[in-house]
């Protein structure tokens, strides 16, 4: 494994210096004209959402959604290219200077998540066009969800993040409640109540950050937290407030113990909406965790004045431990619950909880490694630093592989329901010889969850295990054991689903041609094979994302190349 990872590992260690130089150039250029391309995906999603909402006929709504989603994909593709070749870009809304105005920041981490969201959105749209959900509000709501997710990923402001989360969530309540029956209403209401409480908690954290640090622009926050004494910031409340934010983000990502809304909501939502929620909306929670933990809080050292076990240490260490607890609980509980699920949707939702645990596990290890590295995180050659990069890259690769696979599986779940009339595991059987397309789509997506080469999920799993293996010594054994145990659980529920649905006694009689949505799932699942065989671009994207995540200085410089100095008298 180490040999295979060698080139990637060395690339991770060597590249930040080059990237920093490019970033400075990009910032200088941005001083003249604003890069509108950063705001374009957001404007496209929001504009077409409103247009689709106002469109009078169903045909027009579908056309608007198609144009909007394809335009969105093109805009994101342009942004990915621009950021990977020219460094991060910032768009200052209304040309206000950063600490005062809202900034949209596109760095490698943001575009990696945008790329995932764009692909999932196109697949969900294709599924919705093949098998239209019988509600006129589906397309406007899914585009609003897209706008919310895009805004949350691009924004450089903590309060703005709250606003975009609310946009995303309001659209998802609508999508979950779309079927208008008893189960969907229950699920939507539970989802809404839990997330409204989450929203209030996030508001409290945002207010607390403003009171303690005097700013809500994430770049400015990161800069001030790097030198808390100069800005008169008390570090102890910052850690507590960050904990509140992590809890809220974990709620969005559906991690144990904040997962209670997820199973019912995904089961109730129409298949394309469930694909969007599982593939795109959850990823936004992961993005927020990465951004907060490393970019904003990475430089923060807790002051020694308060005493206690954390005094003098890095804040990321404490957050890393909390994330590890969430991750371990999610992997084990999600995996066991998926093993015991009795229908395909239930298996998928619980599997999502477990798989998100696999995403957060390397983030937690990376955070702890960042705190125990004596030198700064970026010092080349320090093994702790390498693990930080590797852990974040693992989380990015795993999120993308899992997002694509789970979106394909949810679309397939909808197709199965239409084809066979049920998705109950006991009722189904013998579908393998009925349609190789359906069986192929399931295999590609499910084996990605397991992590079988040459699928993209293999690299996700490999990096997660490699991170666990190279993590700080006290964590090494336990995290590795949990990751391996979780992998075994994954194999268990995937093979259970395969044998229940595709092998064995024939279930209900099915027509010879599966619904067209099954081919959408197959197309989406095939991308996993493409990204797995040609892993280069995805690996580069993840490596660049990992560098961008920990490189607070570059992020700060992108947002504001000439920030104000701390005040002489420390009254922040």
């Amino acid at each position, binding site marked *: 494994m180490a040999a295979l990872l060698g080139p990637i590992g060395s690339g991770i260690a060597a590249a930040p210096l080059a990237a920093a130089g490019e970033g400075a150039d990009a910032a200088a250029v941005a001083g003249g004209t604003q890069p509108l391309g950063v705001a374009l995906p957001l404007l496209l999603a929001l504009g077409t959402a409103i247009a689709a909402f106002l469109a009078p006929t169903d045909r027009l709504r579908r056309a608007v959604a198609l144009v909007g989603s394809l335009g969105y994909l093109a805009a994101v593709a342009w942004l990915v290219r621009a950021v990977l070749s020219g460094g991060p870009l910032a768009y200052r809304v209304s040309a206000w200077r950063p600490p005062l105005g809202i900034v949209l920041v596109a760095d490698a981490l943001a575009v990696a998540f945008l790329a995932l969201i764009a692909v999932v959105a196109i697949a969900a749209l294709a599924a919705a066009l093949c098998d239209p959900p019988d509600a006129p509000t589906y397309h406007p709501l899914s585009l609003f969800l897209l706008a919310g997710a895009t805004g949350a990923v691009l924004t450089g402001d903590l309060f703005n993040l709250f606003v975009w989360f609310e946009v995303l969530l309001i659209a998802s309540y609508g999508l979950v409640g779309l079927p208008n*029956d008893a189960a969907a209403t229950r699920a939507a209401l539970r989802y809404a109540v839990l997330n409204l409480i989450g929203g*209030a908690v996030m508001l*409290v954290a*945002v*207010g607390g950050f403003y009171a303690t640090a005097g700013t809500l622009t994430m770049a400015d926050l990161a800069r001030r937290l790097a030198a808390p004494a100069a800005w008169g910031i008390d570090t102890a409340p910052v850690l507590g407030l960050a904990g509140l934010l992590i809890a809220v983000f974990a709620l969005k990502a559906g991690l144990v113990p904040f997962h209670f809304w997820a199973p019912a909501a995904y089961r109730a939502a129409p298949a394309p909406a469930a694909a969007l929620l599982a593939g795109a909306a959850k990823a936004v929670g992961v993005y927020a965790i990465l951004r907060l933990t490393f970019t904003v809080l990475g430089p923060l050292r807790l002051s020694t004045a308060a005493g206690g076990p954390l005094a003098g240490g890095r804040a990321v260490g404490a957050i890393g431990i909390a994330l590890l607890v969430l991750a371990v609980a999610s992997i084990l509980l999600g995996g066991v619950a998926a093993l015991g699920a009795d229908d395909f949707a239930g298996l998928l939702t619980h599997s999502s909880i477990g798989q998100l645990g696999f995403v957060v596990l390397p983030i937690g290890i990376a955070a702890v490694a960042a705190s125990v590295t004596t030198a700064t995180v970026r010092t080349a050659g320090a093994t702790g630093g390498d693990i930080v990069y590797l852990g974040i890259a693992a989380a990015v690769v795993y999120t993308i592989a899992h997002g694509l696979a789970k979106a394909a599986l949810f679309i397939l779940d909808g197709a199965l329901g239409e084809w066979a009339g049920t998705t109950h595991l006991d009722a189904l059987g013998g579908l393998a010889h009925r349609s190789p397309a359906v069986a192929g789509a399931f295999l590609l997506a499910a084996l990605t969850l397991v992590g079988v080469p040459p699928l993209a999920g293999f690299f996700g799993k490999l990096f997660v295990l490699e991170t666990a293996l190279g993590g700080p010594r006290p964590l090494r054994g336990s995290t590795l054991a949990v990751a391996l145990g979780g992998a075994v659980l994954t194999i268990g529920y995937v093979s259970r689903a395969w044998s229940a649905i595709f092998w064995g006694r024939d279930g209900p009689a099915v027509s010879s041609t599966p619904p067209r949505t099954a081919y959408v799932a197959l197309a989406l699942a095939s991308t996993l094979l493409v990204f797995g065989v040609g892993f280069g671009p995805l690996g580069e994207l993840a490596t660049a994302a990992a560098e961008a995540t920990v490189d607070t200085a570059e992020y700060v410089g992108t947002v504001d190349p000439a920030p104000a100095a701390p005040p002489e008298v420390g009254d922040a």
Partner: protein
Amino acid sequence: MTQYAFAVAIGLLFAAGTFLVLRRDVVRVVWGVAIIGQAANLYLVTMGGLSGAAPILDGTARGEYTDPLVQALVLTAIVIGLGTTALALVLTFRLAGTNDTIDTYEVGE
């Protein structure tokens, strides 16, 4: 003195909201959520300082002013809270229609 009054008010609102969220009646749960949201808004206002001055420089004197940023934030948060509370009430109404009950125990899974 003002800060104590605010602290007590915020504490009571959070307590009342939490109490209501834990009820069986879904309408009360939604009210509880709304109250928790308002408590968070009130808390947000106090984060800008409680000097009592207007949140604007009136141009006549270079005197005191309260930080206007939190007030702008709270306005946004109030609007979002209005929308989400209305949505939650609509969902409650639909729950009564589709499940024939608004008791969380009877609604079940």
